[in-house]
């Protein structure tokens, strides 16, 4: 059971993503803003975090920056940005501070997100397996 943290300020979107990941077999926890997400990361080790950018109290990008300053294992948790901002400079900035994926919410269906996360884990495990063999 993969443990996922969904940091999203919009109630409905939080609800949709919680439902779809629950039905996809994930353990889902939610945070309502960046600060909330950072608090949660400090007590629980998640397998992946979905982080919105535009959130009150602390933006997703600031939260990601703070996260990468923490100690492992919290520091190494994969982070996917889920946002409606599509500007290249924002995407570039997100990559620089260490995100693993960038999803523009309005352009994908919830199922596509789940598929993408599944693929991410599959690829990761395949790579790990290959590393073990070699």
């Amino acid at each position, binding site marked *: 059971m993969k443990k996922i943290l969904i940091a999203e300020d*919009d109630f*409905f*979107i939080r609800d*949709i*993503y919680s*439902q*779809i990941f629950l*039905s996809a077999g994930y353990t889902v926890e939610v945070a309502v803003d960046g600060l909330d997400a950072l608090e949660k990361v400090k007590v629980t080790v998640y397998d992946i975090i979905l982080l919105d950018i535009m959130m009150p109290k602390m933006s997703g990008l600031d939260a990601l920056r703070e996260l990468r300053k923490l100690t492992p294992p919290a520091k190494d948790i994969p982070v996917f940005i889920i946002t*409606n*901002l*599509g*500007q*290249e*400079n924002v*995407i*570039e900035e997100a*990559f*620089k501070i260490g*995100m*693993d*994926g*960038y*999803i*523009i*919410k*309005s*352009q*994908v*269906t*919830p*199922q*596509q997100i789940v598929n*993408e996360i599944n*693929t*991410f884990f599959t*690829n*990761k495990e395949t*790579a790990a397996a290959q590393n073990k063999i070699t």
Partner: protein
Amino acid sequence: MKLTIRTKLLIGFTLLLVLSSLIQAFSFSITREYISSQISEFQLLEAKKGAGEIESFFTDLNATNLGLARVYRDSILMASGSASKNDLSFITQYTIKNNEHVRKIAYLTLQGRELMKYDLHGQVSQDQLNYELFTDSFKTAAAGKTAISKVYYLEKELGPHIDIFTPVFETNDKVAAVIKMQVNLEQLRKRIENIKSQDDGHIYIVDEEGRLIAHHSQQYVFERPNLSSRALIKATLTSSTPSPDAFSYNNENNVAVTAKAVKIPGINWVAVFEQPTSKAYDFLVFIRNFFLITLIGSSLFLLLIALMLSENLTQAIRKLQQSVQAIEHGELNTPILIKSGDEIEALSHSFASMVNQLLQRENSLRKEKHENEILLQSLTDAVVGLDSNYNLIVFNKAAEKLTGLSATNVIGKNVDEILHFYQQQELVPFAVYSLQEEELIRKLKEKGLNMSNDKGEKTTVSITTAPILFQAQQVGSIITFHDITQVQELEEMKLDFVSMAAHELRTPLTAIRGYASLLEMENAKELDDSGKQLIRRLVMSSESLGNLIDNLLSVARIERNIFGVEARPVDLTNTIKNVVDGLKQQANTQNKKLTLVLPHELPVVLADAFRVGQVLLNLIANALNYTKEGASITVTAEKKDNLLQVSVTDTGQGIPKEAISKLFVKFFRVSGSLKQGSKGTGLGLFISKSIIEMHHGKIWVESELGKGTTFTFVLPIAKPEDISNFQQNATETDLTVKSQPGIIVRKS
């Protein structure tokens, strides 16, 4: 050699003067010749008159003597004759009494003995009679010819005397006796005095030895001078003909005289006419003086005329010159008319009318300039004129207002010193700007350039440039600045609004799509077909709303120049395949045939595969949307020269011609003739065109009503150096991969 008019005139007049002097001198010399010969003639004539007087004097004496001889013959030799001895005595005494110059008359035998002798007192007594010497003259007379003795002087009387010997012939022509008559030559003086000339000329007589025997001054004769030393007398005595030369000498009173002489035939005496030279040549002197005076007078006159004329001429010319110079310096109102009455006046008239025309032309030019100035200053757009060196020559009020600079401070300065243009943040010198390609200038004109003045105030201006041509050469340019700052601000606000609205719309839209898809996934089993269709429609509508929002955002970003295109060397085969494959299902459901024609290999292009995919997706989606059932759509990709060409051809109804040109303009949709009405936002083709142009490619459409439409775009093929450059400059973002629209992941 440069000569003033005055000098030329003076030289001309001097030449004239020299010529006239020469002519005068020549004519004077002819006149002098003539007058001299006239004087000579006159003097000769006078001398001849003198000679004539002497001849007639002797003729008279001879006649007397011949009479006495006849009486002597009749009374003495031929006693039988009519006259008696007493008659002879009477006649002889009578002769002496009546002719005071006859002093003595004696009757001689051939042996020289005096037979009878008479003087003023009557008959001389017999005892006082003596013998005559056998002089040549007596001998001549004894031989039968009248002879005259040499001139001699008596003791008692001072004057010269002569004796005349006359033969007395018998009837058989035999000389019987000789009459000797003593004559006082005093009488000659009286005779020659009568022919005294009016010009103080007078006649004197010298004998064959040159002794003076008759002169108007008795006293002088008494002095008994011998004048043979005078060249004239010497010449005349030795020559038989009168000398043609005029002789001059100083006479006894030391007066310079001119004289002519004539030899009296028979007695070889000389009659001289002498005249004071001054008197004789009076006329000549007068004429000479006249010539000289007229010469000097005319010289002065000519000189004066020349000076006056040259002064007159040069004064007029100088005046004209001064006026012309003044006019040359721009004082067109300078009076120029000259009242000289000659060609210069005419010239000044011509000048005046020329200047008048200039004035008129200048006035009309000034008026025109003034009008243009007003026009220029009243324009609300800033107008700036540049010369060929990009220096400012015109700067109107609007330009002053726009830049905050005053025209007087900037005229003559280089445009780049005064005005700074920025394209984004980059400084664009005007010279560079004006040399840009037409297409770029058109865009810059539309978007505007940022312009900052010295105070750092920024404005956005749309620039229009027009070349100033003079004789087919560009000598400058006129730039018009249209202040579009407010327009730009408005545009910014619009874009801000669109961005914000789109973003705000995305969140609820995401929720709608999310729930719709959850519904579709989880409740599918419990729904019947109509329920499933309802959900499907919900999903599709929310998808198209999402597309609309995405397109709006894209347009806003394109307009702000922040629409990102990340070109890299790429083979578009997969991209094209994926797009076509993704739409095949839609085509099938619409019962349309979607075909892809691809060669084995496509050339590598520098492109953003995702963006190009968006363009292709848009083109195929359009084809699907605007064709009827059963239509076929063909997608072709191929290499054309150094371009990759991709086209989408459909068998639809085509696009009306009038619409084609507006097809790529944002918010434009083909309406009217389309039966199924208009779909979409009118943004797709605008975005597609922008994307292709960002790739330095081209997109266009060919269409025939009723037959179909072909949309084509071309992208430049990457050059080997582009590819190698790109590999060297790989950046962090190259580590990203777009797996599908909306999802970007880090390369693992």
